[in-house]
């Protein structure tokens, strides 16, 4: 027999149209946030054990119902326009730099990529994945950018802490060696 709060959480998430933060559920249900998180974890496990076609996901700081990834082929046939356009390689690289180095200025991103990124940054901002988050206190007061909750949704992440550590991507010894070789003088 499911508890009343458990059922209430299910009902509320069913009418929500964005991820609902646990604090809000806690406030509405008058229970501690920790209890909400416990219940949501239990519900998620329950759906998984029962082999449901949907999951209870934690995304961008909140909970929401989503379809099981297995069933994408069926859902795609049904959803006509849902798919958001793919990001280009240039956009993804720029997004990666903003994600890991935020808050960061356009000039800093340019310096890392070795190309002008003004156009790409505008596109990413227009699509809502990055936004202005402040200004550099130094001279010039460059606009600083950071990622948005929509970016987290796009990647299916709960928070930026879930990004894999950047250290994982530092090139290995063989790449460093190849580059050194490539740049060295012939002896």
């Amino acid at each position, binding site marked *: 027999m499911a508890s009343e709060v458990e059922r209430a959480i299910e009902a509320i*998430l*069913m*009418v*929500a*149209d*964005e991820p609902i933060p646990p604090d809000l559920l806690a406030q509405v249900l008058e229970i501690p946030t920790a209890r909400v998180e416990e219940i949501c974890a239990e519900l998620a496990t329950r759906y998984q054990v029962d082999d449901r076609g949907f*999951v209870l*996901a934690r*995304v961008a700081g909140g909970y*929401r*119902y*989503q*379809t*099981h*990834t297995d069933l*994408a082929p069926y859902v795609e046939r049904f959803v006509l326009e*849902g*798919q958001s356009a793919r*990001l280009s*390689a*240039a956009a*993804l*690289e720029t*997004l*990666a*730099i903003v*994600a*890991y180095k935020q808050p960061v200025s*356009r*000039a800093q991103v*340019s*310096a*890392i*990529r*070795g*190309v*002008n990124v*003004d156009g790409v940054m505008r596109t990413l901002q*227009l699509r809502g994945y990055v936004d202005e988050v402040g200004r550099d206190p130094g001279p010039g007061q460059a606009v600083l950018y950071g990622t948005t909750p929509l970016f987290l*949704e*796009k*990647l*299916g*992440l709960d928070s930026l802490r879930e990004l*894999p550590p*950047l250290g994982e*991507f*530092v*090139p290995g010894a063989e*790449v*460093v060696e*190849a*580059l*050194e*070789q*490539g*740049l*060295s*003088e*012939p002896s």
Partner: protein
Amino acid sequence: MAYEVATPVFEGPFDLLLHLILREQVELWEVDLARIVDAYLAELQKLDTLDLDVATEFLLIAATLVELKTRRLLPGSDDIDLDEEFGLWEQRDLLLSRLLECKTFKDASAALQRMAERAERSYARRAGMEEQFLGLTPDLLDGVTPAQLHKAYLKAISPKPVTKVDLEHVAPIRLSVWEAIDELADELPRVGKISFRRLTGQLVERLEIIVRFLAVLELYKQGLINLDQGQRFGDIEITWIGDTAGIAAVDRELVDSYEG
């Protein structure tokens, strides 16, 4: 023999360098350097806010590449002053660390791509509120006036800002290395012999001079000119030794492979 770059679009010089060294496994010496430097120059022109730090670093890296290559091509380059040598190592380390950083984020972006692809396979419920509860929701138009609506409309239809910075005052360098080669291959057979200083006497921009210099090195490499430097840091004497057909003598294949 210059390495022929027959590759599609590259996003700037780092991208191109990483591709050449890591994928094609060529050494910088074999690389058609003109193309990479042109890629730098193109990026430099595109910087719409004139950020001095970025521009300086671009120039420094381009200059490092030129110097690395010059050392290989110029006659009598083996007697080198130690200070210069250290300076070059330093610059090369800067370039290396830039390439490594760029590569790190390239690989990170591939990981983000995989995460996004996975996330895209799960669709979120967005049905929203059931009708029975809609009556309870606070009236969203509460306090909104027709004037505010009017203002919102004007904002919505106003053209979205498209940043366009006038770069005329930055004196864009339009000449690419290959254009410079064509120009020299046309001019040199007629004059026969000329000093580098005279050849570039009319030019104001340092970048333009660098471009000319690279063009001279390419012609030297192709055996179309002779270079003679009486003393270190002295003027360079350029002598055309190719046939008089001039521009036709330049390896067209190389020129054709260039599409900057």
